[in-house]
């Protein structure tokens, strides 16, 4: 019973942390983007605009909820829920610190750690696609439908390359358990031997979260605003939260797989973890400020014809290395 | 601990529901989904038997079934799209170019 309670407590803490991170992130993004573009960014609410995210949240909560005429109501409400729930659940297996000892119990710093942890993460994130495709379909709006189909096609395509880019790490670590992968990096982070895998992963992670320069599903000029054109208020906020939490999740996974997880000198491990993730978040914003959007066919061709073969070759090379040379 | 036969009975129930679905539904997509339901019911049986005998053959079988099912769905959906691209409704009863 104690185990169940601990899991529930950890889950609650994590959910609160992630939602706070979402608030902070939106604000940071707006401020940092402002700097990139030589403008101040939000600066009215609170000191230096620091309460802007509260104002934004309040606005979204108080807005009128609109359900389009002719929409499939149940599915229309279900779609953002799926997105958010999948985003929150995916984080559950990521160890963001070494196990701690509290009240005579050893508590691992992730919520659940099946020995197939990383596959579980991929399985859950693959369910997030339903939010987009169902949101697009249930709106009864052709822009939404096309946006939903586009983004889900994009996510499915890049999921393959992403999964394959990780295979190299799994082979090198000899385990699919994220804790084992972290401890395998005590001496050398996998970013060094698996640099190709890392680069592919980074590209895929941007595409998976539908962020610039891969934010085609939201391409305003052709799709209005993609799958969430018809969404307002809290339902829109849920999509929005899902996107930012997904960014945190993929960054955390990148940290765990390639940057040694919570390993680091001097500072406490949890702080190291947060620093590394924050670096990735800054990278996301930087990309958005710098790069123009890709064309859809180019995007798909890049995923299938470049990333996938290279990731495959990388996995093969790692397998050969581990089984022939390193043995 | 639930007896393993419960899992098998559940699997039989799901398989029967799938079978009825194939026979009753007229929309090819829904027929196809019912078929997937049958295949997955079989997967549950395989895993239960594998647990019974602590024998990995059942697991390998399920893995292969999932792979094959994915390929089959890809081909099947492509065929359904080819057939119904130009039609208004998807209904197998309307496929009557051949007298049958």
């Amino acid at each position, binding site marked *: 019973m104690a185990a169940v309670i601990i899991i529930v407590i950890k889950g609650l803490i994590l959910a609160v942390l992630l939602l706070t991170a979402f608030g902070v992130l939106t604000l940071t993004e707006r401020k940092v983007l402002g700097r990139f573009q030589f403008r101040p960014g939000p600066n009215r609410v609170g000191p230096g605009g620091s309460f802007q995210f509260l104002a934004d949240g309040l606005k979204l909560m108080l807005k009128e909820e609109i359900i389009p005429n002719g929409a499939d109501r149940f599915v229309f409400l279900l779609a953002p829920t799926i997105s958010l729930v999948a985003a929150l659940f995916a984080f559950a297996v990521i160890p963001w610190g070494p196990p701690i000892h509290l009240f005579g119990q050893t508590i691992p710093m992730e919520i659940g750690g099946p020995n197939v942890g990383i596959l579980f993460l991929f399985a859950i994130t693959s369910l997030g696609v339903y939010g987009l495709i169902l949101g697009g379909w249930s709106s009864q709006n052709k822009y939404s439908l096309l946006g939903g189909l586009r983004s889900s096609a994009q996510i499915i395509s890049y999921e393959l390359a992403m999964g394959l880019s990780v295979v190299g790490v799994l082979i090198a670590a000899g385990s699919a358990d994220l804790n084992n992968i972290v401890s395998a990096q005590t001496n050398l982070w996998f970013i060094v031997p698996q640099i190709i895998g890392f680069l592919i992963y980074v590209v895929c992670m941007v595409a998976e979260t539908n962020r610039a320069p891969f934010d085609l599903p939201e391409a305003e000029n052709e799709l209005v605003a993609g799958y969430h054109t018809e969404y307002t208020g809290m339902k829109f906020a849920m999509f929005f939260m899902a996107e930012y939490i997904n960014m945190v999740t993929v960054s955390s996974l990148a940290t765990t797989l390639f940057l040694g997880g919570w390993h680091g000198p001097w500072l406490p491990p949890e702080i190291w973890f947060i620093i590394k993730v924050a670096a990735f978040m800054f990278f996301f914003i930087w990309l958005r400020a710098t790069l123009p959007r890709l064309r859809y066919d180019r995007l798909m061709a890049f995923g299938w014809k470049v990333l996938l073969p290279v990731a495959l070759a990388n996995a093969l090379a790692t397998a050969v290395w581990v089984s022939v040379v390193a043995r | 601990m639930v007896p393993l036969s419960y899992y*098998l009975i559940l699997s039989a129930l799901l*398989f029967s529901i*799938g079978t009825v679905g*194939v026979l009753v539904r007229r929309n*090819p997509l829904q*027929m*196809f989904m019912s*078929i997937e339901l*049958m*295949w997955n*019911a*079989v997967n549950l*049986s*395989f895993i*239960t*038997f594998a647990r*019974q*005998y602590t*024998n990995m*053959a*059942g697991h*390998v*079988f399920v893995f*292969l*079934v999932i792979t*094959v099912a994915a*390929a*089959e769905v890809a*081909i*099947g959906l492509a*065929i*359904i799209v*080819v*057939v119904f691209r130009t039609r208004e409704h998807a209904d*197998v009863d309307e*496929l009557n*170019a*051949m007298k*049958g």
Partner: protein
Amino acid sequence: MNFPVINPLSVLPEIILLATSIVALFIALFLPDRRGHQLNYLGLVGVLAAIAVLPMLWAKVEVGFGGAIVSDHFALAMDAAILVSALAAFLLGLREVEPGADYVALVLWAALGMMVLTSAVELLSIFLGLEVLSLPLYVLAGFRRDRTTSKEAAMKYLLMGAFSSGIFLYGLAFLYGATGKVSLASIQAAILQNFTSHPLFLEIGAGLVAVGLAFKLALVPFHQWVPDVYEGSPTPVTAFMSVGTKAAAFGALVRILTVALPAGIVHWQPLIAFLAVLTLLFGNLAALRQTNMKRMLAYSGIAQAGYLVVAIAANSQMGVGAGMFYVVAYAFMNIGAFAVVAALSGQNEEGAEIASYRGLAYRRPWLAVSMTVFLLALASIPPLVGFPGKFYILRAAVSSGGVLLAIAIVVGTMISLYYYLRPVLLMFTHSEETESPFPATAHWTAHVTVGVMLAGTLVLGILPGLLTGPLQNAVHAIYGL
């Protein structure tokens, strides 16, 4: 980790087919228009090469992949029938389907699946064989995407095929569940030692496996898809799948029911015998009222599958031998008949109606005479190959005490005389029309096919001993496992 002994010799014909398909796909990358005859001839060469190695493998039983697959005489004999039907798919394909690398590869893969199905002796490989067989055929049935009938055939075949695969799979699950084993030999051993967790599991397993394969064999009442699919599919594909699938499903049924489950004979034999009688009577009766040649041949194929299953119901070495002979005989007669249909029709199957065969003997004597021979063989008129084929099955049925089965065969044959002879009479009836409904010429490969099948039908009909000797070995081979 113990890696199994792979023994490439055990899957040599399969490897040849796979290699040919890969080469074809690669060559297609460099061809300017990607459609054309060259690749079709490549496929032809691949199949011929596979046929050529069969006698070489005949000398010795090869076991491969740690006992998952066996290349024994039974498998090789079935492979021969399958490869002959694949040959027909290539020889007849030039006119009607505009073969490209995709056509070549899909036919080769389907043939590969059929061959695996007849030689696999372990449940997982059997299932994979069945799927490698089925998936390409779904696509091939719809290969003429411009024809509504072809598209509809593909979809009906797909839905019924996936449905039956599900039933078959459930049967395999119960066979596995009864013993915890997946190789046929160890299932058999477990049954013989009375080590089955539950006897009913075996019965249900055998029943579901039989029903699943009954769909593929087109047995009544699991036959509804057959006429539409056979009519709608391009004729070369129909010829290929009508023979190849039956040979493969027959092989799997023999291996599973009579080799792995001889102990359960009392349970599955009545089911099989019942299906056989139903198929014989219904198939022949339904063929009577067909006006389309391909549909008529489809119903005739259903009836022919009934004869084949009688051989299994006899559950004896004699029965299996008779069934194998009938598979080979059916390959020659049936592919011959479809070859004539393909030779007569052009790109769009003009004049597949039986009525348009009127007076054919005066316009296209060679094809008309060949068609006559094939139809008479299907009606089992001596001295054509259908006659000894049916005679052996009849003998096996009688000697195993299946008098009712024997009567059903005789009744069915008598009914079939009517619909086989009607087109023959029509072809030799003088027609007033000067305009032929058929295009002027056929591709030479179609004539080659007709010639080869004609030779087989005649030679084996007069000298059945050529085949029965080797087949006797084959029967000993599977029972000797």
